[in-house]
């Protein structure tokens, strides 16, 4: 079974936009995000409505950054973590384009980019936006405890990123001078479950899936990890990156020092986010804020992005089920 696909007509990154909450704005990547909110409601009455607004504005921002409007758009591919992915679908009701809802938990951004690349490379569509979002307070009330409840977090836990990011992919090269970024290949991931049942240790639940996808990617393309200037996983967190290094090294792939994790770098140590950020908006805000700007100014020429997702509902751990993971990888290459 082949999991890696190289695109003959690789789609271009025509636009990118990221919106994050105040905590993310204060983190080390703060200056790279397109918009930092002053509070986590953004004038809305509920956190869910705020996430919908963030999602919608991220898509519009990506269109604006490419000098396009929503009538140029063929499809919106979106995902989030709210029940029944309402952030993405409700955001899409204000946009005049077909909507494809994805779900791969926090790996959804990779899944969306891969599906969009298939549609564009296959010649079926010309302009597709890929967006994901998550909201700390929305995720807390849905999966964990009320915000004001005085409990403690375990050292392996992570902090859901309040953020939304949208990437606009086009089949024709964007006009104008400057560096062009292409999505050249994608490796789709299988669901992997090595029996982790601790829902506050998502890094350990997802790392095997990331390892499986990355190893498939390197072996099927016969590339070594050093082919890339930067390798980023989605939200394994600091401890999860250690596990991934261990798992890939066992199979003979030593990840270079340019390997990092979006969740592990989005918060500073003093921000008490423990292992770092998580959530569907983590990889999308870091990619559309920080990584695209590094691709654009040629600090990174070849980027392997591998968003990771833990697949569980609020009920499955209570029913004694373990937590499977999934990860999808996409390759971005910058050229003049």
């Amino acid at each position: 079974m082949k999991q890696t696909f190289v695109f003959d007509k690789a789609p271009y990154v025509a636009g990118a936009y990221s919106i994050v909450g105040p905590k993310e704005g204060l983190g080390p990547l703060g200056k790279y995000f397109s918009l930092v909110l002053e509070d986590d409601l953004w004038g809305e009455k509920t956190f869910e409505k705020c996430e919908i607004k963030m999602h919608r504005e991220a898509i519009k921002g990506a269109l604006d950054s490419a000098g396009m409007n929503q009538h140029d758009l063929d499809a919106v591919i979106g995902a989030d973590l709210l029940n029944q992915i309402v952030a993405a679908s409700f955001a899409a009701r204000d946009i005049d384009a077909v909507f494809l809802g994805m779900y791969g938990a926090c790996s959804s951004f990779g899944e969306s980019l891969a599906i969009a690349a298939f549609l564009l490379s296959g010649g079926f569509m010309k302009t597709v936006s890929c967006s994901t979002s998550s909201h700390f307070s929305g995720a807390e009330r849905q999966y964990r405890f009320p915000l004001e409840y005085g409990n403690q977090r375990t050292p392996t836990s992570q902090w859901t990123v309040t953020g939304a990011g949208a990437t606009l992919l086009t089949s024709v090269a964007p006009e104008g001078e400057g560096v062009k970024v292409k999505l050249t290949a994608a490796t789709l991931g299988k669901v992997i479950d090595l029996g982790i049942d601790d829902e506050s240790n998502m890094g350990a639940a997802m790392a095997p899936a990331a390892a499986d996808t990355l190893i498939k990617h390197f072996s099927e393309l016969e590339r070594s990890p050093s082919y890339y200037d930067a390798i980023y996983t989605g939200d394994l967190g600091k401890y999860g990156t250690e596990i991934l290094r261990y798992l890939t090294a066992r199979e003979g792939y030593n990840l270079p020092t340019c390997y990092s994790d979006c969740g592990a770098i989005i918060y500073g140590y003093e921000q008490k986010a423990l292992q770092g950020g998580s959530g569907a908006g983590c990889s999308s805000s870091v990619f559309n804020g920080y990584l695209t700007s590094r691709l654009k100014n040629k600090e990174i020429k070849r980027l392997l992005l591998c968003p990771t997702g833990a697949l569980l509902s609020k009920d499955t751990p209570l029913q004694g089920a373990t937590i499977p993971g999934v990860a999808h990888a996409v390759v971005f290459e910058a050229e003049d």
Partner: protein
Amino acid sequence: MIEAKAYQEYVKQSAPKTKMMSTLLKAFLTGGIICCTGQAVADIIKVIIPDMSKENIGAFVSITLVFLSALLTGIGVYDRIGRFGGAGSLIPITGFANAVVAPAMEYNREGVVFGICSKMFVIAGPVIVFGVVAGVIAGIIGLFI
């Protein structure tokens, strides 16, 4: 890929652990301060109303602590105390009050009936169930002794 059993063992060994000593000390300190506050309330009531019975003073202490906890939850302080103190602020009656007020605040947006009233007991519910069941059992035993 690594065997599931071997992987679980690896994670168990390598995962960052809770710092036992400092966590215990913080819990002891926080729980101790809450209990001292209760004792102080009792002593003050004794001075103001010398005739009050011991049972009534106990009730007043509980009411005062529950009120203070609800107030601190409402102004967004109790969750910080909880983050610092852990079980030290979770186990006393103040933790119970926090467990009721926090979801009531959180689910206020889903309306009074299906939001506040039905979600109010999502955390504290089991405590009430066990409390009532234990009360019934103790009552039946007490009837025959």
